[in-house]
C-alpha cells in the first residue's frame, strides 16, 4: 500500500462521482418497495419534465414566454435553496462532515462534490426545465450560443446553491433543532402547495399571464434566472444587456463556490455540531410553569401538563396538531368564504381535533414504559387516559367553539349556532371515547425521524385504529345527528333547536366518560403489549 503520496486532485472527482452512484444504487438495493418507489418517482419526474418541456416549447413565440420561463427557473432555484434545509438526509454526499477524516483539500473537493451533485434525478429535471426555457425564448444563432452557456451556468448555480446552503447550515442541520425542522417540512410543503394553487388560480383568471410581467422584469436580473434573461436579451438584439446578465449569473456561481469552499474549510477543521452543543451553557427552556398552577393536582394535572408540553415541544406531535388545527379551520372557513359552505362544516374542527386522541400511547414512543411502570390498577389507567383527554379539551373546546362562531358569523346564520355547537360537542365526545378505546386496543409506533406517521408493518393497525374509530365515532354521535335532522324537518322544530346544545354537550361528556371507563381496563391489562407495539419506531 502506498498511502504516502496523497490523493492527486484529478483523481478525486471520478471517485466522488462513483461514490454518489454507489449510494444511489445501494439505496435501491435495500428493498423492493424502495426500488419501486424510486423508479416510479423517477418516471413521474421524467414525465413531468417532458410535459413542461413540451409546454415550454409550445410557448415559443408567445409574448409571455420569457416571463413564464424566468419565473419557472427562479422557482426551481428557490427549490434548490430550501431543499437541503428540509431534506438534509436526502443526499449523503451533501454532508461534508462525512468526509472530514480524509486528507482532502477544499478546492479539489469542491470540484468533486459539484460534479457529484450533477448526478441524480433533481439535476436531470432541472436540465429539462432549463432546456425548455431556453428553447422557448431563444431566436437566432447568437441566442442559441448564449443558450448553451446559459443552461450550463444556470444548472451549476442551482446545484452550487444547494451545496452552499447545506454547508452553511450543516451545524443547524446536524443538530437536534435541525432534525426537528425537517419533521415540520411536510407542513411547509402543504402550505406551499396551497399558495401555488392559489397563484395558479389567479393566473388562470382574467388578466392571465400578463400579471407575471412585472415579476419577470425583476427576475431577469436575478441569477440563475438572469442566464435565461440573457438568452432573451440576445434574441431581442440587446447584446450588451445579455452579456451583463450572463456575467451576473457567472459571478453568482463564483460567489457561491467561494462561499461554499470557505464553509467547507471551516467545517473540516472545527468540531462538529454535537460537540459544540454539549459545550453550550444550559439554556432555560421556557415552560408553562405559571399556567401549570391552574391544572388540577395529582396524576391528572401531571399528565395534562406533560401532554400540553409535548404539543409544543415534540415535533411530531406539533406537526399533527398544527395540521389538525389548520384543516379544522380551513375547511369550514374557506367553504364559507366561497359561499358554498354549510354551517355544519364547522363540526369539522371538532372531528379533526378529536383525531389527536387516537394512538395516545404511540405518541409517547417507547417512553411509554415510564407510564406503564406507574399503572398498577384500572383506576391508574383511567386517571391517565382522563388526564390526556382533559389536556386535549383545554385546546379543543375553545378552538371548536371559535371555529363554529366564526363560520356562523361569516354565513350570518346565528339561529343555527346552538345546534351546530351541540353537534360539535357530541362529535368531539364520540371521538374522545373511541380514541381512548382504540389507543388501548390498537396502539402503533410513530417513527420519530422523517415524515412517516406509522412504523413499517403497522399500517393496517393504524388504519383500523383511525378509520374504524372515526366510523364508530360517527355512529356514536348518531343520536344527536338524528335529533338535529328531526328538529330541522319537523314543522316548528326550529323553535326547539337550541336544545341540541345542552343535549349534545351532555351526551358528549357522558360518552367520553363511558369510553374512558371501557378503555381503562384494556390499558391496564395490556401494558406489555402496548409497550411492544409503540416501541418499533
Amino acid at each position, binding site marked *: *500500500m*502506498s*498511502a504516502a503520496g496523497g490523493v492527486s486532485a484529478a483523481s478525486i472527482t471520478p471517485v466522488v462521482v462513483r461514490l454518489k452512484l454507489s449510494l444511489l444504487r445501494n439505496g435501491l438495493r435495500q428493498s423492493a418497495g424502495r426500488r419501486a418507489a424510486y423508479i416510479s418517482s423517477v418516471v413521474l419526474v421524467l414525465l413531468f419534465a417532458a410535459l413542461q418541456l413540451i409546454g415550454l416549447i409550445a410557448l415559443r413565440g408567445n409574448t409571455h414566454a420569457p416571463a413564464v420561463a424566468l419565473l419557472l427557473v427562479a422557482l426551481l432555484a428557490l427549490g434548490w435553496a430550501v431543499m437541503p434545509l428540509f431534506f438534509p438526509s436526502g443526499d449523503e454526499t451533501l454532508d461534508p462532515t462525512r468526509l472530514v477524516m480524509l486528507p482532502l483539500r477544499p478546492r479539489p473537493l469542491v470540484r468533486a462534490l459539484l460534479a457529484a451533485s450533477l448526478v441524480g434525478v433533481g439535476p436531470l429535471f432541472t436540465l429539462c426545465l432549463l432546456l425548455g426555457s431556453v428553447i422557448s425564448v431563444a431566436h437566432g444563432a447568437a441566442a442559441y450560443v448564449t443558450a448553451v452557456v446559459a443552461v450550463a451556468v444556470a444548472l451549476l448555480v442551482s446545484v452550487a446553491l444547494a451545496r452552499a446552503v447545506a454547508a452553511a447550515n450543516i451545524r443547524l442541520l446536524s443538530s*437536534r433543532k435541525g432534525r426537528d425542522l425537517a419533521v415540520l417540512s411536510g407542513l411547509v410543503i402543504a402550505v406551499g402547495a396551497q399558495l401555488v394553487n392559489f397563484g395558479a388560480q389567479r393566473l388562470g383568471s382574467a388578466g392571465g399571464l400578463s400579471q407575471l410581467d412585472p415579476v419577470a422584469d425583476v427576475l431577469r436580473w436575478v441569477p440563475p434566472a438572469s442566464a435565461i434573461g440573457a438568452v432573451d436579451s440576445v434574441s431581442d438584439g440587446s447584446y450588451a444587456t445579455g452579456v451583463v446578465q450572463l456575467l451576473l449569473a457567472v459571478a453568482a456561481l463564483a460567489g457561491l463556490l467561494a462561499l461554499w469552499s470557505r464553509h467547507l474549510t471551516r467545517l473540516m477543521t472545527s468540531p462538529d455540531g454535537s460537540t459544540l*452543543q*454539549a459545550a453550550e451553557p*444550559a*439554556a*432555560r*427552556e421556557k*415552560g408553562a410553569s405559571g399556567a401549570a398552577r391552574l391544572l388540577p*393536582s*395529582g*396524576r391528572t*394535572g*401531571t*399528565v395534562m*401538563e*406533560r401532554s400540553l*408540553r*409535548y404539543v409544543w*415541544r*415534540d415535533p411530531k406531535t406539533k406537526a399533527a396538531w398544527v395540521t389538525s388545527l389548520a384543516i379544522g379551520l380551513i375547511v369550514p372557513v374557506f367553504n364559507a368564504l366561497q359561499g358554498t359552505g354549510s354551517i355544519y362544516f364547522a363540526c369539522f374542527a371538532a372531528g379533526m381535533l378529536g383525531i389527536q386522541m387516537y394512538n395516545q400511547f404511540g405518541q*409517547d*414512543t*417507547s*417512553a411509554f*414504559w*415510564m*407510564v*406503564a*411502570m*406507574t*399503572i*398498577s*390498577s384500572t383506576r391508574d389507567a383511567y386517571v391517565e387516559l382522563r388526564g390526556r383527554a382533559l389536556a386535549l379539551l383545554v385546546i379543543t373546546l375553545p378552538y371548536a367553539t371559535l371555529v363554529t362562531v366564526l363560520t356562523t358569523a361569516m354565513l350570518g346564520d346565528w339561529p343555527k349556532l346552538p345546534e351546530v355547537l351541540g353537534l360539535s360537542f357530541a362529535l368531539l365526545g364520540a371521538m374522545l371515547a373511541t380514541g381512548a378505546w382504540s389507543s388501548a386496543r390498537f396502539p402503533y409506533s410513530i417513527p420519530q425521524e422523517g415524515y412517516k406517521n406509522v412504523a413499517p408493518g403497522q399500517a393496517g393497525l393504524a388504519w383500523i385504529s383511525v378509520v374504524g374509530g372515526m366510523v364508530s365515532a360517527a355512529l356514536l354521535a348518531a343520536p344527536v345527528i338524528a335529533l338535529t335532522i328531526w328538529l330541522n324537518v319537523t314543522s316548528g322544530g326550529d323553535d326547539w333547536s337550541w336544545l341540541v346544545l345542552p343535549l349534545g354537550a351532555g351526551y358528549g361528556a357522558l360518552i367520553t366518560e363511558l369510553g374512558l371507563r371501557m378503555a381503562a381496563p384494556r390499558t391496564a391489562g395490556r*401494558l*406489555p*403489549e402496548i*409497550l*411492544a407495539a409503540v*416501541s418499533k419506531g
Partner: protein
Amino acid sequence: MTEGAGAGVPAVRVQGLWKRFGEQIAVAGIDLELPAGRFIGLVGPNGAGKTTTLSMVTGLLRPDQGTVEVVGHDVWRDPVEVKARIGVLPEGLRLFERLSGRELLAYTGRLRGLPGAEVDKRATQLLDVLDLAGSQHKLVVDYSTGMRKKIGLACALLHNPEVLFLDEPFEGVDPVSAQTIRGVLERYTGSGATVVFSSHVMELVESLCDWVAVMAAGRIRAHGPLAEVRGGAPSLQEAFLELVGAQGRIAGADLDWLGGGAR
C-alpha cells in the same frame, strides 16, 4: 429500609421463565433466586437474554411461561405491590426526552403519587448528587449518554424503591459519571436495598458486586456469591470465559502484517 414481607424473603424469585421471539428462544427456562440487600450483577455476552430477563422481571414484557416474584409478590398478579417497590432503568427505551431533567423528575415523582413538595426536594438532591444541577433546565433530548443514564437513575430512585433493576447502567458512560453512579448505588445498597444490574464488563461487576449470575444463550450458567462463581480462576473474566466456553480463540497467525512499522 423496610423489608417488605420480612427478612429471608428473596428480592427476586424466578421460576421456569421462558420467552420466544418467533423462532428464536431468548430466555430458555430460568430458575433463579436473588438474595435481598445485595449488589447483584447479571453478566453475559451480548444476546444472552439479560435485557429480556430484566424486562420480564420488571413487568415490561409478558413471559411465555413462568412466574416472577419480587419481595414475595407476584409481578403479574399483584402489580400494585410490586410496582411501588421497584425502580427500573431499562436499556434501549426512551425517556420523555422533550422534558427538561427537572421536569422529568417532577413528572415521574408525581406519577408515582408522591406529594409535589417532596418530589421537588428529592429531585433537587438527586440532581445535585448526580452532578446534573447545571443541566437541569436543558431538555433531556440534548443530554449526552452519561447524563441520560444519570437522569434515568434519578427517576428510578425517586420513590425510594426496595429493589432497583438497572440494564447496562454503565454502557457508554464516561468514567466521571460512572464513578458518580457507583457512589450513589453503593450508598443505596449500604442501607439494605437490593440492586440488580446487567453488564458485560466483568471488571466492573467484579469490583461492584458481591453476588453474580452468569447468563449465556438464554440460560443461567452459574450463580452465587462472587467468590463462589469465580472459584479457582484468577478473575471473573477468566471464570466467565470458561463458563461460556469462549476460551482460546485468540487471533494470531492471520494478521502477521499488522503492526511493526512496515507498510
